Each structure stands twice: as structure tokens, then as C-alpha cells.
């Protein structure tokens, strides 16, 4: 009797198993429906908007809210500061997202999220209702960490140029106006920050410009970190071989304050006067992500579920890109934001169809950095979802950096930019 019950139970169990699996397979035909609002049209948000439309065969409605009329790329923007590319080269429109993919573009700013009502409040007035929300808002700066820069006037003089756009142009002008023999000081915040190799690429390209146009000038890198954060050996070699006597690297040199009128960087035990002072401030998740009740880690970065990029405490809100607390060794890069956007798009379409997301997502990163106007180096890594930790983990033995800087990688880097821009916007 007991045995028969057990058998019946097992039978029912296995049948249920078959049905569940079958149900899963069959329901892939189920169409996702609904409205997704995407906040932020950078590498993460624009990619999410396009892939949500593309992968739903335009079945899901998508509204993209973006402040800027056009997209300006942070990757490649150091080449504009160095003088080998123009702003036009790194600026693209949102037109095709709208005309070809049918994404509704709203040039506005989101002031607040009402997660209970599933709506966002626009600065321009009115609310947008959503079934799923994608937040890809990037970073904001922690100005209070540098008291002298904690006002708009100071920020108009001492530039970051860590969000590409007007500041990129302005920093280029400061560099052009710097006299031969001038000192360009670049302050690097403690990691994590947006684009780990970016500061060292910038130092390289400013030095490249100085070498050709103002050879008596110096570039001083004040790094809050103990050592070069990314591609260390490759940058150190490039600086020693290409820019001896131009680049001076000072580790463990955290910026404490700035005297704006004398353009002086204040460290713990030292003061460094600059002709051009370029401060990359400490960063956290952008305001809209940091102040909407989403669970943060270290009070700075949004905690997410790696199967869906959904906030760990706020249902239906998916967060991408530089604003999140990353997986181990995962950089805050445009490439990673684009990959996370595809993970989120796939998961959101499943969830809108009443199904579970892909249980084994894979993410990949590639970052190219130029060390002069033609030669580039890379770092790459691959991440596989790990069920035990619930996090995408770097695959041991995969990834790595260039064996040496090369013009070949410089050409590949330019091709990378063209293709990732098309992947998100065209």
C-alpha cells in the first residue's frame, strides 16, 4: 500500500516534471506584451531599448527617456581631448531607434519613481506608466568629498570631462591654452569608478599631445589607488618608452581638496599646482538610482539580481551599467553596460510573457585604450552565471590583456566603436 502510494507519487512527480519542462518549451511561443520605460540613453539604456523591440518583434512598447538630444560616447572621447578626433566623430543621434525600431524617445528627465504605482515622474510634467522599468542612469559625482569643488562655479573651472559632452570640449580648450612648459594634473579617484583604464588612457593622450606640441610640459597623475588600476604593465611600458620626462605617476595620492583660484590639488601631505587641473571625482550610482529606495551596496551602487538585472528590493525595476554593484572584477564599462542590457532585455521579455529568465546568462567585456593617437591595448574577460553564489563570475583562464600595444589594436578599437554604436543605436 505504502509502496503503491509512493509509486503513484513518483509517477505523478515525473509526469509533472515532463509537463513543466514541456510547458516551458511550449510557452516560448507566448508573446510578451507590455510597456517598458527605459531611463538613460547611453551604452546600457539605448541597447536595452533596441533589443527589447528587436527581440519582441516590436510587440513590446518601449519609451526611452534621455536628457540629451544626441548621444556622445565616453569611449573614444579621450582622443578628442588629445586632438586626434572631433566631437562629431563621437556624437550620434537617436533617430534610428525611433524611425526603424519604433522606440518612443522622450527628451526629458525622470525626477522620481513610484514603484508601487509603476510610474515615473518627468521633469517636463506628467507621468509615464510602465510594466517594467529599466534604469541605466550612469554615475553622479560625490562632490562633498572635495569641498572646494562642491559648487557650480568651481565645477565650471576645474573640469572632470568624465561624462562626454561639453566638458570634453572645454578640457580640450584648456589643454590647447596651456603654455609650453605647463603642468597638466590629473586626479584619479579610488576604485571603483567609471572606466578603470580611462584615466591612464587620458594621461597617455594628453602626453602624446604635449610631446608633439608642447614638449617642455608635464603630465602629473595623482592616483588615489596603490597602483595603476587597469592594464598596469602596458601603461607603465608605454609611459616609459613614449613619454619619458613627460608623465609623472604618483600612487597613493588621494585628492582631499582643491584651491580653485590657484588650481592647486591638496593631498594629505602635499600640494600640487597645475596649469590645467583635471579632477575625476569619486562616484556613485546616479541620483535617480541612488535616491529611489533601491537597495544599495556601500551606499553607492545598486544591488541587482544577476538573472534579470532586477533590483534586489524593488520589483519590476531593472538597473544596468555603471550604477550597479558589479560582479567580481567586472569593470564599469560601456561594453559591459551593453551586455547587461541584452541580459535584461531577454529577461524582461520572458517575465512579460509570464516565464522565468534564462537561468545561465553569460556576459563579456572588452575595453580598448589608446596609448597614443594610433596604438591601443585591450583587456577582456568573460563571466558565467554561478548558481552557488547567484552572481556572474569571471571564467578562470579566460580573458587577459594585450601582449603589446599595436596599431592593429588601434584599428580594431576604432572598429569596436563603430560596431557597438551601431549595436545600440542603429
Amino acid at each position, binding site marked *: 500500500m505504502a509502496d503503491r502510494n509512493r509509486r503513484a507519487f513518483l509517477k505523478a512527480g515525473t509526469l509533472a516534471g515532463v509537463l513543466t519542462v514541456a510547458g516551458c518549451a511550449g510557452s516560448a511561443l507566448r508573446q510578451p506584451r507590455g510597456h517598458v520605460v527605459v531611463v538613460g540613453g547611453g551604452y546600457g539604456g539605448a541597447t536595452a531599448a533596441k533589443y527589447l523591440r528587436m527581440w519582441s518583434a516590436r510587440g513590446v512598447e518601449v519609451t526611452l527617456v534621455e536628457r540629451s538630444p544626441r548621444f556622445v560616447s565616453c569611449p573614444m572621447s579621450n582622443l578628442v581631448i588629445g586632438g586626434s578626433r572631433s566631437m562629431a566623430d563621437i556624437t550620434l543621434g537617436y533617430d534610428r531607434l525611433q524611425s526603424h525600431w519604433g522606440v518612443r524617445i522622450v527628451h526629458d528627465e525622470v525626477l522620481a519613481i513610484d514603484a508601487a504605482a509603476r510610474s515615473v515622474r518627468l521633469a517636463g510634467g506628467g507621468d509615464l506608466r510602465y510594466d517594467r522599468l529599466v534604469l541605466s542612469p550612469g554615475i553622479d559625482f560625490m562632490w562633498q568629498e572635495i569641498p572646494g569643488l562642491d559648487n557650480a562655479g568651481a565645477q565650471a573651472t576645474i573640469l572632470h570631462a568624465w561624462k562626454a559632452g561639453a566638458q570634453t570640449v572645454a578640457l580640450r580648450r584648456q589643454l590647447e591654452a596651456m603654455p609650453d612648459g605647463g603642468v597638466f594634473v590629473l586626479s584619479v579617484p579610488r576604485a571603483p569608478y567609471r572606466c578603470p583604464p580611462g584615466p591612464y588612457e587620458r594621461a597617455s593622450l594628453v602626453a602624446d599631445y604635449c610631446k608633439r606640441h608642447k614638449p617642455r610640459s608635464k603630465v602629473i597623475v595623482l592616483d588615489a589607488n596603490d597602483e595603476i588600476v587597469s592594464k598596469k604593465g602596458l601603461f607603465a611600458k608605454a609611459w616609459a618608452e613614449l613619454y619619458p620626462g613627460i608623465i609623472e605617476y604618483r600612487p597613493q595620492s588621494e585628492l582631499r581638496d582643491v584651491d580653485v583660484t590657484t588650481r592647486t590639488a591638496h593631498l594629505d601631505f602635499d600640494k600640487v599646482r597645475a596649469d590645467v587641473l583635471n579632477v575625476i571625482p569619486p562616484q556613485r550610482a546616479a541620483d535617480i538610482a541612488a535616491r529611489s529606495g533601491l537597495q544599495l551596496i556601500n551606499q553607492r551602487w545598486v544591488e541587482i539580481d544577476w538573472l534579470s538585472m532586477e533590483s534586489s528590493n524593488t520589483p519590476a525595476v531593472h538597473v544596468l551599467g555603471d550604477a550597479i554593484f558589479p560582479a567580481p572584477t567586472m569593470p564599469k564599462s560601456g561594453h559591459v553596460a551593453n551586455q547587461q542590457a*541584452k541580459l535584461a532585455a531577454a529577461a524582461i521579455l520572458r517575465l512579460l510573457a509570464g516565464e522565468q529568465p534564462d537561468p545561465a546568462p*553569460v556576459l563579456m567585456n572588452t575595453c580598448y585604450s589608446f596609448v597614443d593617437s594610433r596604438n591601443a591595448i585591450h583587456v577582456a574577460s568573460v563571466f558565467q552565471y554561478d548558481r552557488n553564489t547567484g552572481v556572474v563570475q569571471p571564467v578562470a583562464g579566460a580573458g587577459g590583456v594585450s601582449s603589446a600595444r599595436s596599431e592593429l589594436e588601434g584599428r580594431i578599437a576604432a572598429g569596436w566603436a563603430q560596431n557597438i554604436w551601431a549595436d545600440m543605436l542603429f
Partner: protein
Amino acid sequence: MKRLSALVALTLLTSSLFAQAADPERARNLAATCANCHGTDGRPVAGSGIDPLAGIEKRHSLQKLADFKSGQRPGTIMPQIAKGYTDEQLELIAAYFAAQK
């Protein structure tokens, strides 16, 4: 008991068959990790200098990926990236791109 094991075996077989067919989006999702460099669905921007993957015969691209992974084929970045994917994943990726006409 015999019937039970037969049933279990059948279930396992069915499950694994379904597991393969269960997720038609798995290949698409994996292939999308290549798109940043190789273009959406493996179609790069003309003149970008990066190899197209769309429409490439599965046998051909799978061999290339396997050679990158084993280290037999030199490259700048692909040997490092190919090592991050399982053989099954590379097979799904190659099949997906082959089907993009």
C-alpha cells in the same frame, strides 16, 4: 520497479531533449555577447574591419572558435574570449550565426 526505472529513464530522456530544445533563446542570447564587436546578429558596419559572422557555415566558425580556444590559432583578443565559453555554448553560437542569412 522495472516500470518505474523505465519511466524515470523516459523522463530523463524527455527532459534532456526538452532542455536542449527548451530554450530557443539561449543561442540568441549567447550570440548577442558577440555583437558589440561583430555587429547586431553578426553583421558589422561596412568598413569597420571586423569579420562578419552572419551566414558563416557552422562547421567553419566552430573550427575557428575551437582553434582560438585551444591556442592553435593566434589572435589579439579572440583566444582570450573563446576560452570563456563552453564547447556547447560555442556550438550554439556558431549555429545561430550560420542561420542568419
